[in-house]
């Protein structure tokens, strides 16, 4: 188990990543908050020996995805307006809010793939492991997401 200091350092550093991934997957602040709490509690209680911070980060990403999947299996889900949430966020530029809304408009597996790929910098193979999806599926979904976001993204990757 992590000692309190180690836990605080990791939790402070990665709580936003956990929340962001959870929000993109679940489209709900309240659900994302629940998942964040659960993931951090799991981190606090885990017996996993982390070899490095990167290891802890990957562990957190994996646990977050799993917690989200667990929550998605619940029969009752909260439905929240993305726009209302977006309005509370301070975007540097209006165009970023549009991109945010566009990404949130994708189907859920695409959303998490986009976030893991573009935001967190994971590679397709790693995303396949994190989401328990076949590598080919991740690749396909990523390129479809890219096609749908074409209007907002410029660069070919």
């Amino acid at each position, binding site marked *: 188990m992590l000692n309190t200091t180690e836990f605080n350092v990791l939790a402070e550093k990665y709580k*936003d990543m956990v929340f962001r991934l959870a929000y993109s997957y679940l489209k709900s602040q309240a659900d994302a908050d629940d998942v964040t709490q659960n993931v951090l509690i799991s981190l606090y209680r885990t017996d996993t020996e982390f070899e490095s911070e990167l290891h802890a980060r990957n562990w957190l990403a994996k646990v977050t995805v799993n917690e989200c999947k667990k929550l998605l299996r619940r029969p009752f889900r909260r439905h929240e307006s993305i726009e209302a949430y977006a309005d509370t*966020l301070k975007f540097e530029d209006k165009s970023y809010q549009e991109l*945010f809304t566009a990404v949130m408009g994708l189907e859920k597996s695409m959303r998490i793939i986009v976030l893991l790929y573009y935001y967190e910098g994971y590679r397709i193979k790693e995303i396949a492991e994190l989401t328990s999806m076949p590598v080919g599926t991740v690749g396909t979904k990523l390129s479809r997401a890219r096609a749908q976001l074409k209007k907002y993204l410029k660069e070919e990757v």
Partner: protein
Amino acid sequence: MGDKDMIRKAFECVKAPEDTLQRVHGKTENRRGFRAKKHAAIALAAVLILAIGSIGVYAAKQFRISNQFLELSGGDVQNVEQQGGSGGFVISCPFEYENPYVEDSGKHTGVDFPAEEGTPVLAAASGKVRTVEFEPFYGNYVIIDHEDGYSTLYAHLKTTDAAAGDEVEAGTQIGTVGRTGMATGFFLHLELRLDDEPVDPTEYFE
């Protein structure tokens, strides 16, 4: 600006609520309390199970057989009690007795109670008759199944007055004393078995 940067700009303001860590700490403290409580609950449950289990064992030990399994005349009972018999009867061969004159005789699986030929043999406890048979060693014998895995066996009977499947009350006549099978005189060989393992019936007399 690359796509990665653009997505980052679009999502960087999505952040966990400010008080996330405080709330997690509140819950982890609770969780630790919860864990301690859980351990206490498990310990309590274990103690309860053990207690109930030992009560069960005690209750099983509470199984009793009547010493009224031979219908003797009052005078006879008086007589044998004075001789220090068990359950009011003289024992000619005790439980687990090994005959030193017979090779591989094995331990005696029951207790022998000498009695007059034709003395009525009564069920020592209520139950269901499992077997009424003749066998070269036991002669005519009856097995009755009682509660909690106990059963009694009555051997060397002259006659049997029960049939397999009969429900009998304690005191019901099931046969008469004889010397069928490997018996050199008139006596009742009584066995008590717990899950078909012989136990000493004298310890179970009421």
